[in-house]
C-alpha cells in the first residue's frame, strides 16, 4: 500500500540499512534513555501547577487537551486509515453531557465527566455501527455530516442544552484539578495507544488500513474491531470534552463542536506521524508551541498555517516527525505488516 498511509515511503525501505543498524545498536541502553526521558517530561508536566503561573497552566492544559484529542483521533484514523472529519462531535457530546449532568441533573463534576465518557463512547458505538460500513472516503465525509447534524441538533434542543446561547455551568476555580484530570486523560490515551500498537490487535487494525478485504479474508473481524476502536477513540475525546466544560464552566455549540478541533487533531497527528504512539504527542507539543507563538500576532493565520502544514506533510513527509526520528535511530521503528 502507498506511502502516505503506511507511514513510510517505499524508497525508505530500500535505504534504511544504516538507520536500522544504529537503532539496534541503541538497544537496551536506548530503552532506558527513553524511559528516563518520558519520566522526566511527565514529572515536569506534573510540577507545572506547583511552580507555574496561571498562564503556563492554561497553556499546558490546552496542549494536554490537544494531545488527548490528537491521540484519540489517531486511535481510529491513524491505525485503521478511516479518517474521521467529525472528531469534534465526540468532544462536543462529552462537553454537553457534563454540562447537562451538572446543571440539570445536579451531579458532582467527577461523576458528570464519567457520564460524558460513557455518552461519547455510546455515541461512538451508535454512529460507528452504520458509518464504519462505509468505505474510507465516504466515511470521512459522512462523519463531517454527522458532526454538523449533531451540532444543529444540540442547538435546536434548547430546553435541554440552552441552544445557541450556550450553557452556564456552576463557575468554580478548578484550573489545577482539571489540569491533572486532563493530564490523566492524555496519559491514558497514549497508554492505550501504546497497548494497541504493541498487542496483536494493533496489527489487525493496521491490516484493515493496508487492505480491508484481505484482512477480512484472514479471519479478522474488521467491523467489530473498527467499531471498538472508534468507541474507545470517542470515549477519550468525550472525557477531554467533559473536563473542558468543567474547567471553562460555559459551553456553546459553536465552540465545543468547532471543526477547528478536528482540524487541530488531524494536523497534529499528521505532523507527528499517524499510526504511531508518540506521533500525536510530538505533533501536539510542536503545534501548540508554534500556534502559541503565532496566535497573538496573526489570529487568522492559524487556520491557513494548519492547511499549509497538512499539504506539506501529505506531499513531502507522509510519516511525520516520527519518521525522521526513526530514520536517525532515535525512536524505535513502528511495526509494519
Amino acid at each position, binding site marked *: 500500500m502507498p506511502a502516505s498511509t503506511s507511514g513510510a515511503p517505499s524508497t525508505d525501505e530500500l535505504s534504511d540499512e544504516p538507520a536500522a543498524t544504529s537503532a539496534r545498536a541503541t538497544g537496551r541502553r536506548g530503552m532506558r534513555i527513553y524511559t528516563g526521558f518520558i519520566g522526566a517530561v511527565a514529572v515536569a508536566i506534573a510540577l507545572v501547577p506547583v511552580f507555574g503561573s496561571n498562564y503556563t497552566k492554561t497553556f499546558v492544559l490546552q496542549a494536554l487537551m490537544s494531545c488527548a484529542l490528537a491521540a484519540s483521533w489517531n486511535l481510529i484514523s491513524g491505525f485503521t486509515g478511516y479518517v474521521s472529519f467529525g472528531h469534534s462531535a465526540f468532544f462536543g457530546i462529552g462537553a454537553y453531557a457534563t454540562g447537562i449532568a451538572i446543571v440539570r441533573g445536579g451531579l458532582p463534576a467527577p461523576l458528570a465527566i464519567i457520564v460524558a465518557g460513557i455518552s461519547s463512547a455510546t455515541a461512538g458505538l451508535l454512529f460507528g455501527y452504520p458509518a464504519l460500513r462505509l468505505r474510507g472516503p465516504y466515511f*470521512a465525509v459522512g462523519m463531517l455530516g454527522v458532526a454538523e447534524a449533531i451540532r444543529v441538533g444540540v442547538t435546536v434542543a434548547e430546553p435541554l442544552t440552552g441552544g445557541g446561547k450556550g450553557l452556564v455551568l456552576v463557575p468554580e476555580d478548578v484550573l489545577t484539578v482539571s489540569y491533572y484530570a486532563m493530564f490523566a486523560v492524555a496519559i491514558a490515551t497514549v497508554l492505550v495507544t501504546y497497548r494497541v500498537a504493541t498487542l496483536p490487535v494493533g496489527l489487525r487494525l493496521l491490516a484493515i488500513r493496508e487492505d480491508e478485504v484481505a484482512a477480512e479474508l484472514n479471519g479478522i473481524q474488521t467491523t467489530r474491531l473498527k467499531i471498538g476502536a472508534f468507541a474507545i477513540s470517542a470515549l477519550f475525546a468525550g472525557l477531554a470534552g467533559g473536563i473542558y466544560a468543567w474547567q471553562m464552566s460555559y459551553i456553546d455549540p459553536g465552540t465545543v463542536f468547532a471543526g477547528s478541533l478536528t482540524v487541530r487533531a488531524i494536523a497534529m497527528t499528521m505532523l507527528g506521524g499517524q499510526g504511531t504512539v508518540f506521533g500525536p504527542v510530538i505533533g501536539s507539543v510542536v503545534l501548540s508551541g508554534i500556534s502559541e507563538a503565532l496566535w497573538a500576532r496573526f489570529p487568522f493565520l492559524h487556520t491557513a498555517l494548519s*492547511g499549509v502544514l497538512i499539504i506539506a506533510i501529505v*506531499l513531502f513527509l507522509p510519516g511525520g516527525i516520527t519518521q525522521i526520528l526513526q530514520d536517525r535511530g532515535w525512536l524505535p521503528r513502528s511495526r509494519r505488516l
Partner: protein
Amino acid sequence: MVTLVQVVVSGLLLGGVYALLAGGLTLIFGVMRVINLAHGEFLMLGAYASFFLFARLGLNPILSLFLSMPLMFGVGWIAQRVLISRVVRAPLLTSLLLAYGVSLALTGGAQATFTNDFRSVPFLSGALNIGELAFSVPRLVACVTALVLTGAAQFFLSRTRWGKALRATAQSADVALACGIDIDRARMIAFGIATALAGAAGTLTSFLYTVYPEMGKTFMLKAFAVIVLGGMGSFPGAFLGALVLGVIESTASYVTTTQIAEAVIYITLLAMLLLRPQGFFGVKEA
C-alpha cells in the same frame, strides 16, 4: 396547494445553483477519483471576486462571470498541476487530506485578507408574480444562469473532442493514455472547468446569500450530498440530485425551520450513503 407548488418551485430554483456547484465536484471525482474538499472554497473565492468587482467597479455580477470564470479556470488548472496531480494515483484518503489542507489554507487565507465580515452584493430584488405564485427575481436569474452554464458544460463533455478525452480518462486513465490521450492535460482541463463552475456558483450565491470566508463549508457538504444522491462521477446524476436536494431543503425549511432543514440535508446524505451509496445513476464499484 399553491403553497406546495411555491415551495417546490423555490426548491427547484435553489437546486439549479447546487447543480452548478455539484457538477464540478462530480466531474473531478469522475475524472480523477479525488473528492475535492476544497470545492466550497473555490465557490467562496468566486463569491469574493464578484463582490469586489461589484463593490469597487460596480460590475454586474452576471457580466463579471466573463472575468471570474476564466480566472477560476486558471486557479483550478494551477491547483491541479502543482498539487493534485501529485496524489492522483495515491489512495483516496491521501488526496482527501491534501484537499482538506487546501481548503483550510484558502479559508484561513481569506480570513486574513478579506476579514471575517459578512458581505453582500445588493443586486436584483423583488419578485415576479405569475398568477398566485411569486418567484424571487434573484433566484430566477441565478437558476437560469446556472442552467445555461451546466448545459454548456454538459455540451462540452458530450459533444466536443476534449470532452470525449475527459470521459475516456474517467473511464480508464490507462487505456486513455494508451490511446494517445494526454491524460495530464485532460485532468487539468477537468479541474479547471470544475473550479470555474464552482466560481460561477459563488458568483450566483454572492447575491443570494451573504459572503464570508467560511461560507464554502456548508455548500461543500450540500454539493457532496448532491453527488451522493445522483451517483458519484455522474454529471446528469448530479443535476437530478441537485434538484431533489433543493426541493428537500425548501420543503424541510417550510415545514420546520431553516436550521432543522440543514440537519435534514445531512441526514439525507447519511441515509443515502448507507442505503444506496451508488446513488441514482452511479455504477456500484466492484
